[in-house]
């Protein structure tokens, strides 16, 4: 191992057991809340936790819940989320959250117990090759075979999880290492020579970017989750730069909230279910400034038709994001916040006046007039879009955090719940994990006890990690689970309509639970609503209830999530109002 500690950093070294080292290191790293589930191979750590009331441990019902809760905690605070689970099934149940955090660049430290070192490799009870299994889905991982490496490893894990492009780091600790006695080493000076992320932009590239921005007639900011990860200062720097330049802004699913949705230059989310104006602006722009986004396939659509006439600037902290999918003229490797601040300074240093974007604005307004998120209303049934709109209207003036599951409801939430601030929107973007939202809400609520935390869910997704409702009740986390219940796996049904001539193979959920009784069984409140006239009062009842609520919102059953760029199509080939079934060609059918 190539970790160094300061020569002076060891002065406070103390002897303690491995388990105590873990807890002491977590405290030194500022961990206030962690999520976990005990088991044979982590009992010594749980024993050390028993006498550490400073760390609040949230006992989950399934390890996957601990992982997503840690993700929700991390995404809503900017700090690393911490999860503690046992060996074998404890570790394998964590694999989905680890992969999820990797895809969405969420800082997370996962501590897993392991069988004692002398049993490793013998197929011992509850043994699995945790570092082998998580190697390809974590940013980094460790198997700590010697207690003398333990403190240093934990500090290094936090460093790697939270710096550069953030991500999950796994520390696998055999049980005998937890019992062994070793020296505690503080975090100061713990570095890793081979890990040096570049965070400052090169000044000459900033100058070049400014020159391109000055020349642009049809510019657009395309921002992503990197702006959120870079901290609230980065979102402020984006707002400052937008104010100085007047350039319109669109964002990926992961980047929502970095730029206020109420702003006149906000184009809405882009991509497969993004707004018409955002996708048209991306297609027709002459300068694309990508900040902390990665040209994901949900964003680009058909890549040979992706923004054919633009020059592209790509700001990213991860060099491997550059030219991975889309070639760019000017890559800038840096932390988004630093790059945006440098661009602000440089822009002000050239000429103060804004460029004349009158024609571009007029064009955007013409696209905007298509009102691509519009839907046909109803007096008799609750339209899912309407439900989100009302939820937004009744919660926007509160301290509100939103998480989602994955599917139609997630896209409707992204379209119709308008975010003004970063860190308010927690969703599984890259991996697309159904079951993410409920446990994520648990983690968010643990971080923000007085806030209103709502999981916008679908009736299919929410059942995947539903048992965490029990966690919410036990730990007095008054999360609200707002289920858009259409009895279908809505997005699957929509794709079957689009691609498989309405052969709805196994996408209808028969025998759904009675969500009201279910909530009551767990000790929460259950509400049901199927009449648009009652919706506001029922939502208000949900908000006012001091405890977990499951809201069974019965919505239109076969509503499609539109607009939509069909797979294999270009940005300017969106389906706006109605699916006819012949939108996707043979190539597109093979895509996901």
């Amino acid at each position, binding site marked *: 191992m190539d970790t160094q500690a300061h020569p002076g950093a060891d002065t406070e070294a103390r002897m303690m057991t491995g388990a105590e080292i873990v807890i002491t290191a977590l405290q030194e790293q500022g961990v206030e809340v962690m999520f976990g589930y005990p088991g044979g191979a982590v009992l010594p750590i749980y024993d050390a936790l028993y006498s550490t009331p400073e760390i609040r441990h949230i006992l989950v019902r399934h390890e996957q819940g601990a992982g997503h809760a840690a993700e929700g905690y991390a995404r809503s605070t900017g700090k690393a989320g911490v999860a503690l689970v046992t060996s074998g099934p404890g570790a394998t149940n964590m694999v989905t959250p680890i992969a999820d955090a990797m895809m969405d660049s969420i800082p997370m430290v996962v501590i897993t117990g392991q069988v004692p070192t002398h049993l490793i490799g013998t197929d011992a009870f509850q043994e699995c090759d945790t570092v082998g299994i998580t*190697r390809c889905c974590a940013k980094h991982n460790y198997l700590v075979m010697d207690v003398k490496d333990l403190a240093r490893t934990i500090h290094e894990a936090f460093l790697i999880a939270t710096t550069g492009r953030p991500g999950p780091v796994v520390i696998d600790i055999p049980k005998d290492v937890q019992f062994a006695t070793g020296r505690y080493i503080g975090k100061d000076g713990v570095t890793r020579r*081979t890990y040096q992320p570049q965070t400052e932009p090169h000044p000459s590239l900033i100058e070049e970017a400014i020159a391109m921005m000055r020349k642009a007639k049809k510019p657009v900011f395309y921002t992503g989750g990197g702006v959120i990860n870079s901290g609230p200062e980065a979102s402020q720097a984006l707002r400052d730069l937008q104010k100085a330049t007047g350039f319109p802004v669109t964002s990926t699913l992961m980047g929502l909230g970095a730029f206020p949705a109420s702003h006149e230059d906000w184009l809405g989310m882009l991509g497969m279910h993004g707004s018409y104006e955002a996708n048209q602006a991306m297609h027709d722009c002459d300068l694309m400034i990508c900040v902390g986004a990665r040209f994901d396939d949900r964003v*680009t659509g058909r890549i040979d038709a992706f923004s054919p006439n633009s020059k592209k600037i790509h700001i990213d902290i*991860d060099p491997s994001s550059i030219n991975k999918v889309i070639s760019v003229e000017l890559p800038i490797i840096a932390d988004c916040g630093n790059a945006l601040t440098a661009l602000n300074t440089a822009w002000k240093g050239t000429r103060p006046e804004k460029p004349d974007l009158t024609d571009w604005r007029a064009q955007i307004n013409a696209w905007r007039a298509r009102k691509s998120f519009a839907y046909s209303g109803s007096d008799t049934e609750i339209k899912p879009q309407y439900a989100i709109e009302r939820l937004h209207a009744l919660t926007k003036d509160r301290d509100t955090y939103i998480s989602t599951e994955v599917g139609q409801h997630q896209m409707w939430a992204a379209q119709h719940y308008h975010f003004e601030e970063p860190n308010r929107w927690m969703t599984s973007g890259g991996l697309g994990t159904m079951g993410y939202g409920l446990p994520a809400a648990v983690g968010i609520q643990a971080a923000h006890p007085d806030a209103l935390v709502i999981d916008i869910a679908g009736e299919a997704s929410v059942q995947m990690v539903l048992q965490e409702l029990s966690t919410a009740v036990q730990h007095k986390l008054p999360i609200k689970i707002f289920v858009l219940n259409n009895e279908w796996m809505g997005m699957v049904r929509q794709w079957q309509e689009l691609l498989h001539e309405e052969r709805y193979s196994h996408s209808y959920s028969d025998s759904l639970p009675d969500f009201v009784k279910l909530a009551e069984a767990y000790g929460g409140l259950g509400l049901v609503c199927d009449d648009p006239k009652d919706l506001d009062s029922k939502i208000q009842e949900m908000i006012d209830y001091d405890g977990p609520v499951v809201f069974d919102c019965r919505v239109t059953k076969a509503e499609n999530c539109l607009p939509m760029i069909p797979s294999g199509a270009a940005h300017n080939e969106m389906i706006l109002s109605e699916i006819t079934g012949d939108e996707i060609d043979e190539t597109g059918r093979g*895509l996901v």
Partner: protein
Amino acid sequence: MSSNQTDIPASAYDMSHIDEADERRTLAIIVDNEPGVLGRVVGLFSARGYNIESLTVAEVDRRRHRSRITVVTNGSPQMLEQIEAQLLRLVPVASVTDMTKSKRGVERELALIKVAGTGDKRVEALRIAEIFRARVIDTTNESFIFELTGASDKIDQFCALMRPLGLNEVSRTGVLSIKRGAEPG
């Protein structure tokens, strides 16, 4: 980038790179020598669909626990750029050097080649071995084991010539590389 290009695949899913001219590259990857590091490198290649033509690894700096992994790979220029960037994302990877692109790389491979035969074939095998400066490191009445060092294509040629003379087993190290000149790295 321009819209009239038709050879770019329609989606990231079918970016096969087959149409683009593949290039062969030798990469020198310097890593911290710790458990699992080779697994990380090899796993990255398989997970992202990159090719490994040859692979060698050994510790080269005991004091600093550094190992050198030499990988021969092939792909389009864009894919090769990605391979380097993806390798550098791995925490224990200290550096990646494209030995082919640098133009200063020299490459060598070592092979052990078993040739079984008697009579004229045996004499001919020994004669060719002399031409290639292969050493005999084991001999029986019916066989030789040759040790041969050189560029990979030289070893390929040697094997091709030995095949009709009774070649029945080959063991190769894979490519090693280092840069010419006084400077390290």
